[in-house]
């Protein structure tokens, strides 16, 4: 697939950013397609926040080019972005509705529109009782929800959220997740930077992993996982696993119940499945490809044993 510029919400091309002698972002290239949920991940200090700040025009890249919605960043395009930084806060001694009204107006909304929409979103997230409360009077979870509202208040076309679920309980996590899904269904592009791999697996369509400023993984989430899949299968049940055709070796699994069957060259998991299906000597409770979780991939890639991916 080679998407046209009009399909791209963000296009980052060969962007490099140096802090003195240290290269924070090194020749980074990636796209975020319109309407997708895109995830950025990487160890601390990998260059994620620097990249986000360059996208937001808070920092200028040393070299390379960034375009938003097909054109260079301008005040107009900035108004189409909603950004929620990782470490967040709002004016503490100001009523919630006033903070939201102010931030909405700064994003180009009229005072009336900002107030009306803020009220609607506060009601949607169960904060209708707290419209006039000061931010400092709210619980951490409530503040987090207000922060999310501040991010999406002006109906942005692109939402960039750093660690959207940190500090949230499962109920509030689900509430925010539902809101993001709903916005995404309406066509809003969402970029998440997070360490919570299971959230990426669940939510993101595509991902970018950076390490030491370089792109190390990029693409469809499932494709990335498949790329890291071992030539092996995981089974649970009873039988003589080594006697199966194509099985090179058998390793006990981590939990004591499952076993990992490593396959010989030229054999596919389907061959093993067919052999199991026709044999009465095997009793199978579980059969799956040995695809690593994103967490395992993250550890493997971020553990410096991985050569940066070639485009």
């Amino acid at each position, binding site marked *: 697939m080679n998407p046209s510029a009009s399909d791209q919400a963000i296009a980052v091309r060969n962007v490099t*950013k*140096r*802090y*003195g*002698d*240290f290269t*924070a972002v090194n020749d980074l290239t990636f796209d975020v397609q319109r309407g997708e949920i895109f995830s950025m991940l990487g*160890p*601390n*200090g990998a*260059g*994620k*926040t*620097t990249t986000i*700040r360059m996208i*937001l*025009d*808070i*920092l*200028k890249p*040393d070299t390379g080019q960034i375009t938003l919605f097909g054109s260079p960043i301008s*005040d107009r395009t*900035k*108004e189409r*972005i909603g*950004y*929620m*930084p*990782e*470490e*967040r*806060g*709002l*004016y*503490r001694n*100001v009523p919630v509705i006033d903070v939201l009204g*102010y*931030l909405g*107006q*700064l*994003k180009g909304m009229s005072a009336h529109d900002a107030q009306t929409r803020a009220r609607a979103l506060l009601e949607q997230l169960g904060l209708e009782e707290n419209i006039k409360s000061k931010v400092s009077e709210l619980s951490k979870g409530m503040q987090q929800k207000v922060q999310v509202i*501040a991010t999406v208040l002006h109906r942005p076309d692109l939402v960039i959220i*750093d660690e959207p679920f940190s500090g949230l309980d499962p109920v509030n996590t689900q509430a925010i997740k539902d809101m993001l899904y709903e916005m995404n269904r309406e066509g809003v592009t969402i970029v998440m930077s997070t360490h919570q791999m299971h959230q990426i697996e669940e939510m993101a369509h595509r991902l970018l992993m950076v390490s030491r400023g370089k792109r190390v993984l990029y693409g469809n989430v499932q494709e990335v996982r498949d790329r890291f899949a071992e030539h092996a299968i995981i089974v649970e049940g009873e039988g003589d696993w080594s006697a199966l055709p194509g099985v090179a070796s058998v390793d006990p699994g981590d939990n004591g119940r499952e076993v990992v069957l490593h396959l010989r060259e030229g054999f596919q998991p389907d061959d093993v499945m067919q052999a199991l299906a026709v044999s009465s000597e095997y009793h199978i409770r579980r059969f799956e490809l040995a695809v690593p979780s994103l967490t395992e991939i993250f550890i493997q890639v971020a553990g410096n044993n991985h050569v940066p991916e070639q485009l």
Partner: protein
Amino acid sequence: MSWEKIWLVLRREYLYNFKRPSFLFTAFGVPLLTLVAMFLIFTFTADRETNLDNWQRVGYIDRAGVIDPALAVENDVTFQPVTDPALDTPAADAPDDERRAYFDALEASAAQQVAADNLDAYFVVDEHYTLNGQVTVSSERNLPAALTSDIEDFMRAQIAAQAPAELPVSVERLSDPMSVVIRDLDNDEELTETMLVGRIMLPFVFVFIYFMATSTTSQFLMSGVVEEKENRLMEILATSLRPLELLWGKMLGLGALSLTQVALWAGAGVVLASLHEGASELFSGTTFQAGDILLVLVLFVTNFLLFAAIMMAIGAAVTAEAESRQVASVITLITVAPMALLVTFFNNPDGPLPLFFTFFPLTSAVGLILRMGLTTIPTWQIVAVLAIQVVSVLVLMWLAAKIFRLGMLMYGKPLTPRTFWNALREGRVVLTTATESQAELPDNLPQKRSVGR
């Protein structure tokens, strides 16, 4: 730059800080309390001192024989001689002892009449009044000032009636021989003593108002920046507007707040002057002309911008509000230095130290206004001060904008002068962010990162 966004920031900063309890107290509370205090003083104290409704029965005992009961004296209170039917009035040629015994008995009777509430007070003209002028007033209550003043007028009239017709000096002149008039040779105007006090005092009042207004609002500015930095709002704001829009919005918003405070205080001053004759006279003593007021206003604006630029830079450079207050207090100390060394202004307002304070940008407003009340300032000095102010404002605003841009995204690490200097020299900005903490940088790298800006 978008003026619409500057206006949004301006309005938000103005309204938010206007509602702060500390501002409300300084802006409204202080002048209001002053007015209420003045009102109470006028209503109660002044009334008590001037109202003679309860002092209509005042008698006198004339031991010296200087009072002519038939003489009509215009007074609020008509004084009557103390009498007692039980006592026989001694004959005009009665011996002194007999007369003294009579007056002693009359005084005792007068005291009893006061105790019985038949008299409000009585005064005794001493036997040797013509020599010692002694008049003793007795009462069971505190005497209002108006009553003693009435007794004085009464006695003056009595003496005047007896003075020789050919006396070339009026009795009033005898009783109050000196009326001081001070002539200002600069503009040949006559000043009363109250006006003279006003001439010296008013610059202090101006300085006080100016100082309160500037320091209060510029500290609001600083704490606002620190708050936005501390709670990371700055990063959100940075995606909504440009740093210079934020900086100008804040400066103008708080500048307007500062002017509001001055206007409120000045308004209170005008009300006070219209209420009280003395205050009015005090104000009229000032040498301030329209041009001087304009100069003070210009200095007010330039000095506010200087202060605001410094406070904003401090706010952007530090990491916590407590830290910012410490740094800000040093700046405040410098600014109040002319007040602390006030005596040098009185000794010689054109001396080296007052001159230094006049030209040093941070103390110009205070130094110049203080000198205005004490000396005539040459035009060249005023021009030089204004030039220095404008240049300082431009330089400091430029520096503040640099520091603001540098510091606004620096969390958890203060902006050191060295870092800033390096950034200025290289035309680059050096920053470290919290999200990319230093500890995670490779070991062989310096503990800071330079960012081209």
